[in-house]
C-alpha cells in the first residue's frame, strides 16, 4: 500500500517559486496499479519521484505499507522500491545478469542466490536465460531492454514499484505485447504499483485506478470505468477524449453483457426455425448448434420463410465467435468486420454459452449515462413540482 499525505513540491526558480505538486493526497491499495495521468508539466512525474525521493518533497509524507518513510534512510528506502524509467537505464558496462543482480548484490546476497534470481526473472519477463544472461544491453532491442528493466526492478522482490512511462519509448506493437505480459505478471506478483503515463489508452488498460493531474493538482482519482463514465469536470472530460464511451468497451467483458440465446439443431425443420425466430423476436436469423451444443452456423429468416426442409441443409457458416473473457472492444471490432449485430459466445470447448448483441452493449454502456441524466434532472423536477 502506498499512501501520500499532503505531498507538496515547490521549485525555486529565477522567476519565483513554482508549485509542481500541490497538497497531493491519495492512497493506492495493496496489489493494485495506479496510473498517474495528465499532460506534461502536470506534476505526475514529480509526485512519483517524491515517493523514492529522487525529488525531495517540500512538505508532506509518504507511507509505504503503513510505515512513514520520512524517517527512513534514502538508500534503504530506494532498495525496497522497484524503479523503472522510460529511458530504461540499463548499465551498459554490465551484462544482463549483472544488471538484474545489482540490487541483490547491494543487499549482500551470495552469488548463487542472485544468479538463480536473475535466471528466474528473465524467464518471468519472457526472455530465454541461456541466450540473454551473458549479453550486454546494447545487443538487445528496446523492447527486450525494457523487459530487463522491469526484471531489474523486481530483483529484490520489493513490495512497491514506481514506473515512469516505462513503455513510452517502445514501438506500438511491442508496447501492447509488453503491457499484456506485464499485466499477466502482475496477476501473480500482486505488487503495489504507481505508474506514470500520458496515454489514456494505456492507463485504461493497465490501471485499477487512475489519478488525473492538472497544474500540480490531483483533479480526479477513480477507477477507469468511473473516470470514463463520470468525468468530474471539463478538463477531465476533454482529456479522456470524445470517444470515452468507446474506451469503456475495453473495460467490460463479454460475460457482463451476455444474454441467453435460442437455437435450432440441424435435424429441426425450417418451420421450427421460423417459429423460434418469431417467438424470440429475432430480426434476421437464428443460431444452429450441433449435438455437443457447439455453434456451427445460422439459419436466416428469409430462407426459413421461403424454403421447406431441414435446417441442416439450409444454413450459412458461422462468421465469428467470442469468449466470455473477451473485452467488448474486440467484440465490437469483430462485429464491424463481419457486418453483424450479434455474435455467439463459446467457452474453451467451443460450447455455446450465450450471445452478445450490439443492443446489449449500447444498453450496458448507456445505463450509467442514463442514471447520470436522471440524477441531473431530478433537482430540476423538484423545482417544477414545488
Amino acid at each position: 500500500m502506498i499512501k501520500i499525505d499532503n505531498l507538496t513540491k515547490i521549485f525555486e526558480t529565477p522567476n519565483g517559486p513554482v508549485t509542481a505538486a500541490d497538497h497531493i493526497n491519495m492512497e493506492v491499495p495493496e496489489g493494485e496499479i495506479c496510473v498517474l495521468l495528465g499532460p506534461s508539466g502536470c506534476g505526475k512525474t514529480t509526485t512519483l519521484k517524491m515517493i523514492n525521493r529522487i525529488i525531495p518533497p517540500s512538505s508532506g509524507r509518504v507511507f509505504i505499507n503503513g510505515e512513514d518513510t520520512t524517517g527512513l534512510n534514502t538508500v534503504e528506502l530506494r532498495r525496497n522500491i522497484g524503479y523503472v524509467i522510460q529511458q530504461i537505464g540499463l548499465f551498459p558496462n554490465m551484462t544482463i545478469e549483472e544488471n538484474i543482480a545489482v540490487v541483490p548484490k547491494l543487499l549482500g546476497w551470495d552469488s548463487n542466490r542472485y544468479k538463480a534470481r536473475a535466471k528466474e526473472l528473465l524467464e518471468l519477463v519472457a526472455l530465454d536465460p541461456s541466450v540473454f544472461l551473458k549479453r550486454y544491453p546494447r545487443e538487445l532491442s528496446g523492447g527486450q531492454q525494457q523487459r530487463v528493466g522491469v526484471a531489474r526492478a523486481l530483483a529484490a522482490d520489493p513490495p512497491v514499484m514506481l514506473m515512469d512511462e516505462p513503455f513510452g519509448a517502445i514501438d506500438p506493437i511491442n508496447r501492447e505485447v509488453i503491457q499484456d505480459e506485464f499485466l499477466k505478471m502482475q496477476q501473480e506478483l500482486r505488487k503495489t504499483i504507481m505508474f506514470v503515463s500520458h496515454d489514456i489508452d494505456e492507463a485504461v488498460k493497465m490501471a485499477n485506478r487512475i489519478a488525473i493531474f492538472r497544474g500540480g493538482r490531483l483533479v480526479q482519482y477513480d477507477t477507469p470505468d468511473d473516470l470514463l463514465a463520470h468525468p468530474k469536470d471539463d478538463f477531465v472530460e476533454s482529456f479522456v477524449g470524445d470517444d470515452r464511451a468507446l474506451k469503456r468497451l475495453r473495460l467490460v467483458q463479454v460475460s457482463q453483457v451476455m444474454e441467453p440465446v435460442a437455437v435450432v439443431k440441424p435435424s429441426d425443420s425450417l418451420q421450427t426455425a421460423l417459429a423460434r425466430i418469431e417467438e424470440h423476436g429475432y430480426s434476421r436469423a437464428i443460431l444452429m448448434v450441433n449435438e455437443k451444443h457447439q455453434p456451427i452456423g445460422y439459419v436466416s429468416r428469409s430462407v426459413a420463410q421461403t424454403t421447406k426442409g431441414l435446417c441442416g441443409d439450409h444454413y450459412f457458416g458461422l462468421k465469428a465467435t467470442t469468449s466470455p473473457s473477451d473485452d467488448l472492444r474486440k467484440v465490437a471490432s469483430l462485429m464491424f468486420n463481419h457486418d453483424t449485430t450479434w455474435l455467439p459466445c463459446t467457452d474453451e470447448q467451443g460450447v455455446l454459452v450465450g450471445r452478445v448483441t450490439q443492443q446489449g452493449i449500447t444498453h450496458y454502456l448507456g445505463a450509467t449515462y442514463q442514471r447520470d441524466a436522471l440524477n441531473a434532472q431530478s433537482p430540476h423536477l423538484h423545482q417544477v413540482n414545488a
Partner: protein
Amino acid sequence: MKKLRLTRYGYGIGLVLMFTLGILAEQYDVVDELFFYQEDVVYLTVQHIELVLISGGIAILIGVPLGTLLSRPRFARIAETAMQSLNIGTTIPTLAILALSMSLLGIGMLPAVFGLCIASLLPIVRNTYTGLLEVPDHLKEAASGIGMTAQQMLYRIELPNALYVIFAGIRTALAINVGTVPLAFLIGGGGLGELIFTGIDLDEPFMMLAGAIPTAMLAILADIVIAVLAFLIVPKGVNPLRT
C-alpha cells in the same frame, strides 16, 4: 576485392623499398655504425623508459582522481575555472615547461620528471572530467533510484562507463610524454635525447640515429601498450573496440 589487391600492391612496394634500404644501409655500413653505440643505447633506453613510466604514472595517479573530484557536483562551481586554467597550461610549450621546472628545481632527473608530469597531466584530467560528466543522466537516475550510494555509483557505473574516454586521455598524455622525454636531456634528465642532441652538435648522423630510432620505436610501443590495456580493461559492453 579491389581493396585487397591494392593492399597487396602496397605490401609489394613496401618490401621493395625495405630491400633497397637494406642494400643502401649495408653499403654505408649503417648497421655497424649504429651498433657502435649499443652500450649507450641500452643504458639510455632504460633511463628513457624510467622517465616515461615515473612521470606518466604520477600524472595518471594525480590526473584521474583530480578529474573525478572536479566532476563531483560539489565542485561544479570551480570545475570549469579549473579546467580553463589547465587548458591555458597546455598552451605553454613543453620545452618551456622543462625550462621553468629547471629554474625551480635545478638540473637532474627530478625537474625532468616534474616537467613531464605537468605536460602530460592535462589530457588525463580533462578526459576524466568530461568522460564522467558525459555519463548519461538517466543512468545516474537509474543507479540512485535503485539505491546506490554516491560512492557505489562512481565505482560501479560512472567510472566503468567513462573508462574508454579516460583511456583516450591517457593515450594522448603518453604520446606527449614520450615525445617530450628526449628534451629532458637538456635539463640533465638523461634519456635517449643525449644521443640525439650530442649527435646533432657533433655532426655525427649515426649517433643521432642511434638515439632517434629507439625513441621512435618506444613511442610506437607505448601507444600499442596503452591500446592493448584499453582493450583489456574497458568493460566489454562499453568498449567500441570489442563489438
